[in-house]
């Protein structure tokens, strides 16, 4: 991509015990580290407070293999902290990608 789009991650409280991550922009080789870097703080602050992590991915314009890896890390981190990761919104492009990689079996995706 010629113009670099940044990744924005907003942490939004979404009800009792639920933390929602709203991601917008590109989640790729250049920005995947930003998401991974967020994780320790995320769980540090939320430790013991939440049971569900929701991810709104509908604002992600692009994701590459590094971005997929970052989502897997997010999933694994949630697992470690005994939180469920639920993807609450995503683009059709992402859904296709998760199907191709069979990650739809791993991630809890919204039903169509």
């Amino acid at each position, binding site marked *: 991509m*010629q113009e670099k789009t940044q990744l924005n991650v907003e942490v939004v409280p979404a009800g009792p015990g639920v933390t929602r991550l709203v991601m917008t922009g590109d989640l790729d080789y250049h920005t995947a580290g930003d998401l991974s870097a967020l994780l320790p703080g995320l769980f540090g602050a939320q430790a013991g407070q939440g049971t569900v992590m929701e991810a709104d991915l509908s604002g992600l314009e692009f994701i*590459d*293999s590094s971005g*997929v890896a970052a989502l897997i890390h997010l999933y694994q981190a949630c697992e470690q902290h005994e939180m469920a990761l639920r993807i609450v919104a995503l683009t059709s492009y992402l859904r296709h990608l998760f199907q191709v990689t*069979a990650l739809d079996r*791993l991630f809890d995706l919204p039903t169509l």
Partner: protein
Amino acid sequence: MTETRPTAGAVRPAGVSRTGQAGKTPPVPDPALLHAIIEASTEGVVLCDADGRFVMVNSAAARLVPELAAGDPPAAARSLFDRTCPVGETRHTAHGDRLLQVRRERFSLVHHAWYLRDVTGDSARTDALLEERRRNEFLVEASRRLSASLNTRRCARATAELAASFLTDAAMVVLPPTGRHASWLRALPDGTLQEGTIALGDTAAVPGLSEALAGFPPVPSRWLDPAQAPAWLMPEGFGQAGHLLVTPLPGNGVPAGALVLARREDGPAFDEADEILVRVFAARAGAAISAAVLYQEQSATNATLTGDLLPPALPPVPGVEIAGSLRASQQTGLIGGDFYDVYLPDAVTAAADPGRRPLLTLGDVCGKGTGAAVLAGQVRQCLRALLLLEGEPERLVPLINRSLLASPARNAYVTLVLGALRPEPSGHTQVELAVAGHPAPLVLRADGTVEELASYGSMLGVLKQIVVTIVTVDLAPGDVLLLYSDGITEAFGGPAGREMFGAERLKAALATCAGMPVAAVVERLEQISTEWLAHGEHDDRALLAVQAVRPAPRARDRERAAR
């Protein structure tokens, strides 16, 4: 006299001219007054009458030229007081060890005055300034030339040439010894360049060289006896060196060699300023040479390490033609996270398992660059080892997954396609494919139809339990099976620059390749993809295509056909 430096004719000492106007005959100013006036000047003033005889000498002039006295100019100082010199003109004349600035002015109606000023110090300062500027220009030029290359020999050559052009009559760079020898380069001011090697033991014969090569601080030139320098140190016809200066070239932590400068016997000795300049120059040259040495060592290491990560040469496989293309995302790097390979069963495996088929793979590891390339190399190697024991894609994929899960590498996530090829006598080839989290392979039929294989499978390295479905495709002679990485379909570009190439465009492009030999198909798709990207940044891109070919008729059949 308030002005110590009257300019030519413009200012006349006021007191004197008023006196001149008062009388009718040319008045002779009061000697006491004159004396007071010239004594007030910090410049040396010598008053003389119309005949050039000295009338009065102030104390400043007497300090500068002690032999001055009233009367005729003393012979020793006559060159200072050249009466042919026009009034008002300034000259510089050496007198003894001083440099004097001399100027003649009209002083009163009857007198001339010689003004003397000692400019020895000014001149020395100017010379020093010019010399300093010359040295700085040399160092700037040196830095410019030294930074232009990361090649050890070129850096050493620049060092020798720079030194020869500015510092000395012969300059020799001795590079850090490798094994029992050290290479050297020698430059002369006329541009001659000589090169050679010396045995390490011979360096001991040159005063100061062994120490410099070991990185000890330089010793002053005057401590080095040029008479002890061996003949090989000097260029032919140079004769005996008169002055020798040996300076270490300091590198990054380790010495980067030594600089040997020689001046002829009739040349000037290396003074302290020279030695300081040479040391500064040597520091810059040493840094450049050591950077070049380091760079070349690392390049060699890189070449060795990347050798196995480069796209492999594809072996001939009976019944099919195969072509591949790999483009790494990083312009400078040839290696990346996409890979492909073709494996033929080795003799032992083939003997033990006659049904063993050639296997091809194309995959994409998470990430880009060197880290991804290393993982890609590991996957290829892992597959090569697994193939000694297992040949079925269905069982190979879970084994690769387990190997990746056990890998200490973070992000050891891989998507790939494995295909086992079974050519048939009819010219058809059956390909059994396992697709693990990878974009579905495409098939181009001879009539231009493009099919997308229905495949499903997990990305590898993430989960212990994976799913992989196996699809079998029948390639008729001329049909092409295309494996590709998502770098092709997810390439951003096009007219607007931000559009994804997409699977549909790839299928359309593939449809235009019907009837082409497989190498041309890959080349054409690679070209279309590159054009789409224009100048944009891109991911690693891989293409691997297999075409079933009708087997060549056997020699006996050909003979029969010819009859």
